[in-house]
Structure formats: structure tokens, C-alpha cells
């Protein structure tokens, strides 16, 4: 089944599900998964047995998008066996070395979160790198014309509304400890940038200058926020402290800047500017200085950059028709097209990417494994989801 056919089927199926009009969070996903195969040569063959229902689904899904190929036990390099009767427990056997490399039993939380924990332990043990199964995303959820910020598991499950402004709320971005969200809301009648503590619910307005304030991006050290402010009569890049104090204008162009992001060392901002005509990526020191073009050979118009946490890559959207998610070495170079879609956000593993895909007027969030170009749309929700930001 092609991606599009599967998609249509999903839309048809979900149209029969009656859902409350204004709450994305209350909707339980239909567990329909869309997978698009990429380069299989880099995949690790693994088998799963003894699990059932949601736990099996979660394990398959988590491992699949993190570079594993779920195969029969006799052709797998690793055999995962276990059970989910009451709690999740499982073992991992390395068939080549003929030794058990992992054995854990999990307690507390839901079976779903236990399955995520086991998946991350498998990823860590076999690849030596932390998994992303227990991380969070923020995104814009739209239903009935209202757009609010939602927070969910990385796979879209357990969505909770973070805002209830009843107006358009856009461009969410995480603070580094996954506790605070920054975003722009039209609550005042204008676009203002808010800092929102998710534990207490308290929020402060950090930018409410004349014109529009939007697209905040928090430095990885949590100390500063880059954003677009139009108070000078033109959308310009600013950086301020995380509480909104000490704003500093970093660009002086006649064109519009958009969608800033940070280098992992919190020293440099990457921003889109149309100063050269077509939109392109530029680097500018967070302390101020000249703008330096980042070469994206092979793609003319680019936007929505996101710097990988390991510093190696900048993912972005190519403004082709349709849009494509791409990456380029962070010092610039030749572009690698990763697949169709827009607005990529790196996972904390610098490998998995979440992005937006369009289907008519609807938008859905999909996961992409940059190394194999595999794509997974974990589950289908009614309404629209876009502008994902992955908590690091």
C-alpha cells in the first residue's frame, strides 16, 4: 500500500470516529501506523516475542523508528523475549555472541511507559546511545479553527493542552529542562511571546513590542531566547534573556528574517533571511556581529532550520513544491534530502526528526530516521497537528 493510499484509508476511517470538537487531548488515537521504508542496509535485525497489545505496539514502534528491523527470531541478530503480564519484563539475547546482554523488569507508571523504558534500554545497550522513547514534544493542535499548544509523548500519545487562550497560539519551543515552553499567542490581540512553566502553569510575557513577536527559540543553556520582532518596521532577529530582559537586535536588514535556532554551545544563532533575495540560512553570533551565509548547495529557497544537538547538522525545509525535509552539515555544504515534509525538529539523539506533513487542509506529525530515511506516522488523530518542537 502506498503512503497516499494508506493515508486516505486512515482519513476515511477516522471520519467515522465521533470526537468532542474542541479537545484534541480527549481523543484516543486509532492505532493505525504508516511506515515508509528507507535504506535497510543500516538496520539492526531484532526479533520480539512474548509481548502483546499496546506493549508490543510500543516496542515495535520505538525500535523501528530508531533503526531496528523487526524480523523473525531465526534471522535476527538480537532476540527480545519477555512478557507484559502486570508489568513489562524482558531479556535481550545477542545471537552472535550467544549471551544475554540485557534483562530488566519495570515497575511504576503505565504499561506504555514501561514499554518505552524497555525500548530505550534496548537502544542504549545495542547502539550505545540513549533512546528517545520517553521524550516529549510540543506542537500546535487545531480543531474547529482554534489553535492551541499541546504537549505529548514523542509518538503523539498522551496529548495535553498546555494553553487555553481561545485564540491563535503558534511557534512553540522548549526550554532545555523540558519544563518551560515558549510560544507566541494572540491573547492580547497581537502576537506576544510567552514563557510558560508547565509545572505551575505560571507564564510571563517576555516580548510584547509594537507589531508582531513570534518564533521564539531558547538557547540550549536556557539563558537566552532568539525571536522575531517587527517593532522596527520590519521583522528582525532579536536575542533577549530568558525572562525578556536585555533585548538585542542582531540583524539590520530591509528584508524579513524568520525561524531562528541555536547552536549547541549557545553562542550562535542560525536564522532565515531574504536579504539576498531567496530565503537562505545565515549564522550570526548571539553577542552580535556580521551575518554569514550557510551554503545549502542544491536547494534554492530554505527555511525553518534546526541545529542537531550534537552540532553536526542543520535540518531545514526546502521550499520546493511539495516541501522537503533536508539536512546540511552545520558549516554548510551539500544538501541531503531526507523526505517530503516541513518544519523539522531534531530529537535529543541527533538522529530522529519530527516534522509536519500536509494532507489537504490537515497536518500530521511524522517521525523520520535521518540515517535510514525511514518515516513513520505513529498514529492518526483527528484535527490538525503542526509546528513540532522536540524537548531536548
Amino acid at each position, binding site marked *: 500500500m502506498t503512503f497516499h493510499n494508506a493515508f486516505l484509508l486512515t482519513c476515511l476511517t477516522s471520519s467515522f470516529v465521533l470526537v468532542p470538537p474542541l*479537545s484534541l*487531548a480527549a481523543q484516543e488515537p486509532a492505532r493505525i501506523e504508516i511506515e515508509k521504508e528507507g535504506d535497510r542496509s543500516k538496520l539492526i535485525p531484532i526479533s520480539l516475542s512474548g509481548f502483546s497489545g499496546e506493549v508490543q505496539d510500543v516496542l515495535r514502534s520505538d525500535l523501528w523508528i530508531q533503526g531496528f528491523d523487526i524480523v523473525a527470531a531465526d534471522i535476527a541478530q538480537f532476540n527480545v523475549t519477555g512478557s507484559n503480564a502486570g508489568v513489562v*519484563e524482558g*531479556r535481550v539475547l545477542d545471537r552472535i555472541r550467544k549471551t544475554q546482554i540485557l*534483562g*530488566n523488569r*519495570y515497575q*511504576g*507508571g503505565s504499561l506504555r*511507559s514501561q514499554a518505552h*523504558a524497555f525500548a530505550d534500554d534496548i537502544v542504549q545497550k545495542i547502539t550505545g546511545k540513549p533512546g528517545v522513547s*520517553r521524550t*516529549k514534544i510540543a506542537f500546535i493542535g487545531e480543531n474547529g479553527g482554534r489553535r492551541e499548544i499541546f*504537549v505529548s509523548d514523542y509518538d503523539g500519545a498522551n*496529548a*495535553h*493542552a*498546555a494553553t487555553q487562550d481561545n485564540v491563535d497560539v503558534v*511557534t512553540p519551543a522548549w526550554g532545555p529542562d*523540558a*519544563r518551560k515552553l515558549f510560544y507566541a499567542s494572540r491573547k492580547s*490581540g497581537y*502576537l506576544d511571546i510567552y514563557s510558560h512553566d*508547565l*509545572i*505551575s502553569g505560571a*507564564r*510571563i510575557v517576555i*516580548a*510584547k*513590542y*509594537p*507589531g*508582531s513577536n*513570534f*518564533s521564539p527559540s531558547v538557547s540550549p543553556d536556557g539563558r537566552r531566547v532568539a525571536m522575531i520582532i*517587527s517593532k*522596527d*518596521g*520590519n*521583522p528582525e532577529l532579536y536575542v533577549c534573556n530568558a525572562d*525578556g*530582559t*536585555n*533585548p538585542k*537586535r542582531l540583524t539590520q536588514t530591509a528584508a*524579513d*528574517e*524568520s525561524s531562528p535556532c541555536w547552536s549547541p554551545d549557545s553562542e550562535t544563532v542560525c536564522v532565515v533571511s531574504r536579504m539576498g533575495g531567496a530565503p537562505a540560512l545565515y549564522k550570526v553570533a548571539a553577542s552580535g556581529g556580521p551575518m554569514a551565509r550557510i551554503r545549502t548547495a542544491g536547494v534554492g529557497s530554505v*527555511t*525553518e532550520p534546526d541545529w542537531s544537538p550534537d552540532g553536526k547538522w542543520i535540518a531545514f525545509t526546502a*521550499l520546493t*513544491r511539495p516541501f522537503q525535509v533536508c539536512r546540511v552539515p552545520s558549516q554548510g555544504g551539500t544538501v541531503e534530502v531526507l523526505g517530503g515534509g*516541513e*518544519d523539522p525538529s531534531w530529537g*535529543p539523539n541527533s538522529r530522529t526528526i519530527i516534522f509536519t506533513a500536509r494532507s489537504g*487542509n490537515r497536518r500530521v506529525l511524522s517521525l523520520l530516521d535521518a540515517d535510514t530515511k525511514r518515516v513513520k506516522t505513529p498514529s492518526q488523530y483527528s484535527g490538525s497537528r*503542526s*509546528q513540532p518542537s522536540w*524537548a531536548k
Partner: protein
Amino acid sequence: MNRINFLKLLLMSLMLASTAIACKKVPKSITPIPGVNPRSPGDPTTTRPTGTDPGKTLPQGTETTPTNLSDITGGTQLGPRIDKGNFWGDKETFKDNTVYFAFDSAQVRPEDKSKIDGVAQYLKANPTFKVEVEGHCDERGTEGYNLSLGERRAASVREYLISVGVGGDKVGTITYGESQPAVQGHDETAWAKNRRGEFLLLKPKTQ
């Protein structure tokens, strides 16, 4: 009978023993699911509300607006924000003055300048009135990109108004990106109508 019972017993003890062996294979390393320390990064409960019932919203708390944000100088400044609570908003008066833009462009088109001239004349004749220019985009940009492009379009219209003698403090700008298309559709006919700048006339409630 005895023989059958004996076999049953044997079978049961074998099963128990194998279960015990199976259990022994699981090392004692028990990995607790994080859920106690609410601040650890990646903790699944970090962003969960106190009640973990999915479908509930996250806590809504106090809201603070700092009153003394540092002022920024430089550039062609916008005037202070217009307090829309003191004005009647009117989208009718200038509904035929909506200007349109070429694809991916924020340049005011020559053929649209007379429409903005009409707005300028009206504002000069009504010196207590203000206007807010709303910038809109078609769906062929991404959302973040279109927020800036929409604002840049509004800024271009504002610049033209200033160039024909309207005070900069009388003109505000706002961007809607691609979120409020004038026309639904996914073809050039729809897109051309969605790449636009609209005028919201603001009439003071007390004269």
C-alpha cells in the same frame, strides 16, 4: 489414579522449577519508571498535570506581564501599540482596498498603490482614526516563514502609507501568516487571493 496424581505433581513441580529458572535469568536490576522526581529531564511525568488523566489540560496558573521591558531604539520604528479596546474595529470601509502580492514577494504592486492612496486620504481627513495593516500569505510557504513574510507585507504597505504622508504612529502592523486564507483551495486562483494586505480601520470610541 496414584500414578496420574504422581504425574500431575511431577509436571507441576517441573513447571515451578522452570519458572524459577526463567525468573533467575532476569537479573535483579529493576529499573523503576521515573515518576517521582518531577524535574528530571525526559521524565514522562515532567509535563503531566497532577492528575494523569489524559484529556485534561495542563495547569493554568498566574500570568505576569513585566511593565518595564527595556526600550529598543534604531530602525524605522512602529508607534506604541494601539489599544484596540479604545477603538471600534471596522473591516468594511476598506474592504475594497485590499492589496495583493506576487508569489513570495512583499513588494507593493504599482497597480495597488491607488488603493493605499485611498486609505491615506481617508486617514488624513480623519486625523483621530488609525489603521492596522494585516499581512497574509498563501499556503506555499511554511508556517514560520509565512509569519515573517506576512509581517513584511504589512510593513511594506505601512511604508507606502508613510511615504504618502500618513504618520507612522497611525499605522500598526500584524501578521496572520497563512492561518486566515480569504479563499479555500490549493491552486493559483486561491493563492493569489490569499497573498494580501487588509486594512482594519480603527475609530476612537470617544472623540
